Structures are given as C-alpha cells and as structure tokens.
C-alpha cells in the first residue's frame, strides 16, 4: 500500500511515524518543500521516498502523485488546502484525507468562521466586526476598548494582536500601537494574500484557559481525540511573543487536569454543530481533521478562538505515545466514510509532554535564526524514552543539519505524572544544540507542577463564574456602540 503525506514539519513527521506503525506497513512517500531529515528517514525506512516540491502548487503536487498513484493521500498543513491542492487531487480520483478549499474556509477566513457561528447560533461564539477599509477599522478600534485585532485571513498563526485595554491612562499608547499594527498587518501580511475580501477582524477579547480539541471526521461521524494544551508564548512563565507553539501537554485520558468531562463534551458538540453548519453552507463533504482552538471563558465556558482544518502542531505530537488504534485504519475509514466503525483506543495511564526547541531569534527575527548547523543526540533522547520530531531543520547538501529559522524540533516524553515527564523532556531538549554556538531555547516550565496547578486555579475561577451565570440565566446580550453611528447588538442566548 502506498501513502502520500504532504507537508514539512513535526506534525507530518508524527503522521509518518503513526503510519509506519500500522500492521499494513505502507510505503510512505513525502511531498515536502525542504529535506526534513525526520520525514526523509521515515519515508525511506518504509521503502518510500521524499520528494521536494512546491506543496502549494496543485499541478506540481498532482504531477508527482500521478507518477506514484498512491492509495491514500494525507494533507498535513492548511496552506495547500487553501490553494486547492485537495480539490485537484480529489478531482483526479484520489482518496484524500484533508479539507477541500471551500471547507478549509473555516480556518482560512476568520470572518466566514464567526459569521457561520452567529448564523447557526453555535455556542462559544464571540462578538466581532470585519473591515476592508483601514480607516473604518481605526474608527471602530478607537471606540471598541478591549479587543483583539486579527488578520481576516489565517496567516500561519501569526499576526494576532491581543491588546487588553482597561487602563485609560495607557490607552493612547495602545491605540497608537493598534493603529500602527493594523497598518503593518495590512501592508505586511494581507497584501501577500489576494484571496480574501476582508482585511481585518476586530474581535472581543476574552480571558481564560486555552486548550485544543482535535477531531477526525468523514463528514458524518466525528471522532474526538484527547484534549491537548499548547503553549504559545516563547518563554517560561508565559512570557514573550507569540509563536507557533512551544510545546503541549496531554492527559491523563481524554481530558486535562483543568478541563472536565462536561466541558470536553460541550466542546465536541460545538465542533459537531460547526461541521454540520459548514457542510450545509458549502454543500460538500468534510474528510479530514477539524480542530478547535478553545478557551474556557467566563462568558460561555467552552469558547471558540479559532478553527483549524488540520492537526495542531505540536499538539498532534502528544498523540504519538497514547494512540493505541491503528492510525492508518482511522484515516482509511474516514476517506471511505466508515468512521463510525472505528473504536478509538487511548492509553489513559500516561500523560505526555511535548517541548519545542527553537533557535535564538525565533519568532521575531528568523533571519538570524536561520542557517545554523545543529546536532541532535537521537540515541540518548531515545534511551530516555523520548522521541524527536523534526520541524524547521533541513538536511544540507554536505550531510549536516541546518536550522531554517523556525522551530527546530519537538521532543515528546510520556510517563505517569507531569512533573517527572517534564523533567525528562527538559533533559532531552538540552541534547539539541547548534554546533556553531548559536543559542537554542525551550520552555522548561511546560508540564511543571507550578504551571499545571496555576492553570487549574485559573480554570476553577472561570468555571465558578460561567456555571453561576448559566444557572442564573445571566448570559444575555452585548452592545457595541460607536457614538453617532448607532448600536450593534450581539445576542448570546
């Protein structure tokens, strides 16, 4: 059996390892934009091969796929979906695991996503306004107070600016930053993308505990995976700029220490309702991954921050040690619309911690973070029971590994409790180094007792408020008002 995996990073590396464990032992072919050593090895070990290509080009991808004529194609990242790679392959008659262009709008367009949620009254929605004109956006921002500015289009998770504004004496500096930022966003980010009408999305800001719910679907059945929590801040104690994710924790079982069973169920219901609404609007069948970047908030309890039309990276890495069901079986069942036949088996005796090692300079100054030779002591990492999933690492023509400027690799560790697992992961993260002396960094606090218990305290406080407000019917409406322009009413009921 031949399987093609499309993508570059530690998410795809995880997928190839999951596939290689299948009793069917498929030949894995990877289509990638650079030579990721992990993907290359996984492909070659299975008897397959890694092909470099422009993974965003439907014709280039189809050209290689036609040569291979695989039984199954798995799409890792979101951008090829946005570019219509899935549509072209499906039209070509291939069995593809991944959302088509129109379905992937759920991730690509934040406006489409919020609009859908309001139209179908899906719980966990937030008040928002979308803008094509910068000046209009500015005027709204001036009156909106506590808001989040997002590019209207998914831009690799980058570009979200959360600027809390509850201190009038600091407002003008923040307005200035927001104005500057909105302009920068439009000139830097949004001009690269001509595939969307709206430029900016201004959304109400919420506080709470974030978590990710990944699900696999065949368009009918939704198979929820265990909850995972990502850590977007670059540095320890949740300090520093936003990254693509510096690590994640999972377990024990399907929930997290700070998210309870009911909240998990409600989150699943949100994904199910959204999937149904999405398929109705688009009139297409969703095969692939639909994930919710969720937050437990005082307004709603489980609340949607974003949807992803793919696995989270690094979130999916955590599943490597706890997924006991043959992953290939799951994917095959999804593409052949028989997902209802799958019983998911997850180890509930383990917790898992994933830690990402990044080069100094990531995420804000990737130019200087690029091109450093690295060494990875895989043997020692394995002997500690951990695994390395390669991300922003390229196998150079000289046989050495070089940083691409992005996150280098993810270390996965599992065990019976977070503290022990986190400590071992820290030890292993030290085994990834730049040979030229350039600094690398990782978050030693991910999975630590203090951080996990801090999340528990925060979640408990949020839970106390939202359950109280629900019970007493205090969930009602929000009013937006720009003086001289009239009011907009958002009904949460």
């Amino acid at each position, binding site marked *: 059996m031949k399987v093609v995996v499309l993508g570059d990073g530690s998410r795809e590396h995880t997928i190839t390892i999951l596939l290689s464990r299948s009793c069917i032992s498929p030949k894995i072919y990877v289509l990638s934009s650079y030579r990721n050593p992990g993907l290359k090895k996984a492909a070659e070990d299975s008897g397959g091969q890694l092909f470099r290509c422009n993974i965003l080009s439907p014709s280039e991808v189809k050209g290689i796929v036609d040569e291979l004529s695989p039984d199954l194609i798995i799409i890792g990242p979101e951008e090829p979906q946005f570019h219509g790679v899935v549509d072209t392959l499906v039209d070509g008659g291939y069995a593809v695991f991944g959302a088509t262009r129109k379905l992937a709008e759920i991730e690509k367009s934040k406006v489409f996503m919020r609009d859908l949620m309001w139209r179908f009254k899906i719980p966990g929605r937030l008040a928002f306004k979308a803008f094509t004109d910068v000046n209009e956006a500015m005027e709204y921002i001036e009156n909106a107070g506590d808001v989040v500015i997002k590019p209207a289009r998914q831009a690799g998770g980058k570009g979200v*600016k*959360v*600027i*809390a*504004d*509850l*201190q009038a*004496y*600091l407002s003008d*500096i923040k307005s200035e*930053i927001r104005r*500057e*930022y909105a302009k*920068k966003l439009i000139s830097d980010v949004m001009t690269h993308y001509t595939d969307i009408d709206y430029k900016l999305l201004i959304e109400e800001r919420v506080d709470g505990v974030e978590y990710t719910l990944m699900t696999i679907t065949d368009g009918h059945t939704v198979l929820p995976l265990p909850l995972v929590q990502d850590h*977007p*801040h*670059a*540095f*320890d*104690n*949740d*300090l*520093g*700029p*936003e990254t693509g994710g510096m690590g994640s924790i999972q377990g024990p079982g399907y929930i997290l220490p700070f998210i309870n069973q009911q909240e998990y169920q409600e989150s699943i219901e949100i994904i199910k309702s959204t999937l149904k609404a999405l398929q109705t609007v688009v009139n297409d069948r969703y095969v692939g991954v639909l994930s919710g970047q969720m937050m437990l908030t005082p307004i709603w309890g489980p609340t949607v921050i974003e949807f992803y039309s793919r696995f989270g990276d690094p979130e999916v890495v955590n599943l490597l040690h706890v997924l006991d069901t043959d992953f290939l079986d799951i994917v095959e069942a999804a593409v052949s619309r028989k997902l209802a036949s799958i019983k998911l088996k997850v180890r509930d005796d383990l917790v898992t911690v994933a830690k990402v090692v990044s080069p*100094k*300079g990531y995420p*804000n*100054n990737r130019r200087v973070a690029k091109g450093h030779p690295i060494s990875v002591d895989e043997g020692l990492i394995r002997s500690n029971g951990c695994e390395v999933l390669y991300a922003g690492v390229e196998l150079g023509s000289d046989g050495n590994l070089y940083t691409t400027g992005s996150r280098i690799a993810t270390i996965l560790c599992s065990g019976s409790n977070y503290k022990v697992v986190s400590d071992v992961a820290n030890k292993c993260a030290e085994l990834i180094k730049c040979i030229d002396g350039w*600094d690398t*960094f990782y978050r030693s606090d991910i999975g630590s007792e*203090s951080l996990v218990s801090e999340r528990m305290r925060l979640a408990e406080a949020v839970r106390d408020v939202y359950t109280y407000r629900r019970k007493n019917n205090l969930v009602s409406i929000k009013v937006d008002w720009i003086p001289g322009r009239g009011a907009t009413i958002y009904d949460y009921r």
Partner: protein
Amino acid sequence: MTGLIAVLAFDELWKVGKYVYYGLLASQNRGQDRYFAAVSDGEKLNVFEDDLNYLQINGSKLLNSNGHVGIGGTFTSNELHRVKYSYLREGWVEVAVIVDGIVDKDLTTLCRDLIKLMKSGNSLAEAFAEVVKGIHGIYSLICLSNRGELIAYRSTPGLRPLHIGSYGFDLAIVSTESTPISILGGDLKRSVRPGELVCITPEYVKSFTIKDNGRPALCSFEYIYMARPDSILDGIDVYHVRKSLGYQLASKFKHDVDIVVGVPDTALPYAIGFATALNKELDLGFISTGSKLRTAIKEDPKDRLIGIQLKLNPIRCVLSRRRVALVDDSLVRGVTIKNVVQILRNKLGVKEVHVVIGSPKLRFSCPYGMEIPPSDELLSANLDEALSTKYVEADSLTWLSAENVIELFNKYGVNLCLGCFLRSHLIG
C-alpha cells in the same frame, strides 16, 4: 526604600516611557521623593532623574522617550539616594543600575566593572554573574544596558521582594511589588527566587541561580507596613496578612468600646479585621487633606507632624463622646498616635481611647535596608508598656506578639525575618 520597575517590549513598535512613568507613580509607597529612570532604544540609554513631585509636572521627556525597554526607581530622600542608583558610560557601553536594599559596593564602581567585562565580549548577564560575586548585601537590583539587555537580581535570603509579570505577548514587567504590574494592565507571573538572576531581551528570557544557600526569608515589615495593601508578595496577599493580624489582635484586647477606627491608610485593613473579630462597628474616623503621604518615612520631625495633621482630620459625629478603639499598623516613635489621641480627647471629647497596634513591639533598627529609626528613637525600645501608654496618652495600649505573626506565616509555610521586633536578625 526603593521601588523598582522595569518594562521591556518584545516588539520594538512599543515605546515604554509611559509605562515606566506610570510604574513610578505606582511605586511611590516605597519612595516619594526622587525618581531615576533609564530608557534604551537598543543603541543608547536616555536617563531621567528629578524630584518625584515634579514627575507629573515635567515628566514629558520620560513619557515621550524613544525606546522599547526601560527601568525606573523611586527613592526616599532620607537615604543617600545617590547610592541607590547609578549611570555610567564608558566608550560605546552604557549601563544604568538601581538597587532596593543595601549593598557594600559603590554602584558607580559596579557599573565600571560591568562595562569592563561587557567590552571584552560578555553579555550584561554574564558580566553581572561575575561582578555579583564581589557584592555583599541584602537587595534586589535591576540593570539596563544601552543595547537593551535587562537583568533583575534578588539576593538571598529574599528580604527585598522582586516580581515578574507580563502584558500579553507584548511586554515583560519587573517590579518590586506586584501592584505596579497590575496598574500597568499586566498579569503577575511569579516572584524572582532569592539568589536568582533573570535576564530579559526581546530574543530570550533566561534564569540563572547565582546563589542557593538556605531557606528563603521574607521581611515581616514589608507585609506589616511597607508594601501596598493591593500587592501580592511571594504569593501572599498583603491585604490578607494585615486583616488577619487585625483579627488576631482582637483576642488580646480586654476592653469594651463603642466604635473601631483605623489610622489611614495603612492601618485600615487591620481595623477591618479587628472590628470583625470583636463584632464592633467599624467606622471612618479621619479624612486626609492633600496627596497621600507616608508619614513614618519622613526624616524631619516637623515634616512628619505636618504630614500627620494633614492626613488625620477627624470626623466629629463618628468620634465625639464615644469609647474608641484606634487601630494603627505599627508604633515607631509614638508621635503620630500621641497627636491623634490628643486631637480626639481635646477637640472631640472622646470618652476613652484604646490604642491597638497591628504588629509586635518595634525595638530594633534594620541592618537590611528597611528604614526603621535607630533603637534610641523607638518608643518600645525605651519605655515599658505602662510608660508608653502614658506617653501616647491612651487609656490602654495593645500590641501583637511576635508569636502571633509567626503563627500566621507558618500557615503560609514561609520563613520570616522578625529582626526589628526580636533582634534575632537572620543573617550576617
């Protein structure tokens, strides 16, 4: 004392001058006379210093300064403020440093040593890790280079507080107390551990353990008087400590009263705890005039008295012809309380005044930088209970015992320095 504040933006879009400015305003409880600030744009340091009273009038230079990282400190004038901060430029390297507490090294020399090491290729953090070996003292310190490197260090055993917070993905904030972090809209993340050096740049946040000897100890006087009641120091709510001590105080109080009033502002949480435990009415006894002044840290006796009288204008209908419990946080020289008692008796015709103090007898000066007068100026070090009661002209005088304080802090599992009450100073 000194209030330290540092703000660093990870994105250079930000100008932090305004943040340092409001950070200084929020640190005035630790020093209300002078300020010093330094802001870096990654290439050079701009330095600001003046009388703190002028900050709101002509602080516009600081407010509008260019730079994504800055530090600041507030100082009292009765310390030689020169020793609390320094700025030095040698060649292409500039360094500014601010200290809360006491160090045995001249700060200009410290800057010079840092610059020397930085010129030979070390980062500010590497240079400090070397220089700190030659510094003895009990202190917290922040330091900024012209390149925008920020470091924060808290010496063992941790008597001077230091906290780290953040504002979203954008700012890191370091502050002596947690309050300035929340005033700046941020979230408190944690306290700096005793012996820990934290260095923050837009590209990394690193922590090093410089010294790790023995159990940490916290300063009891921070909780009793110095810190703002809305601060959380080392995970413990200052307000909760003061209210709990007030509560405990009630069990030592043997008299009957009609009303409980607190001396504003520090003693109010004590009065709330005390009145709650006694099940007596708590009322507002005094209204302040002018800006908030911390009378006990004024050097000149006349200034102190003026401060007291301005902040303690009594409300007649609350106090007149009543039996009053008057709660204060601490008894230093006794001048404040004596003055208040006299006003209550002579001008308002109060029937009885019982003075209740929310801390043990203050008898020793502090060798670790807390500004407590020398022993010969402390009432409890010189007069016994009977004489002290007569001196302040009260009908009774009640203190907490050191055991009360220890018992409370045992619940938090923390070790406390009670040197100013017991002389058993923890460290040499």
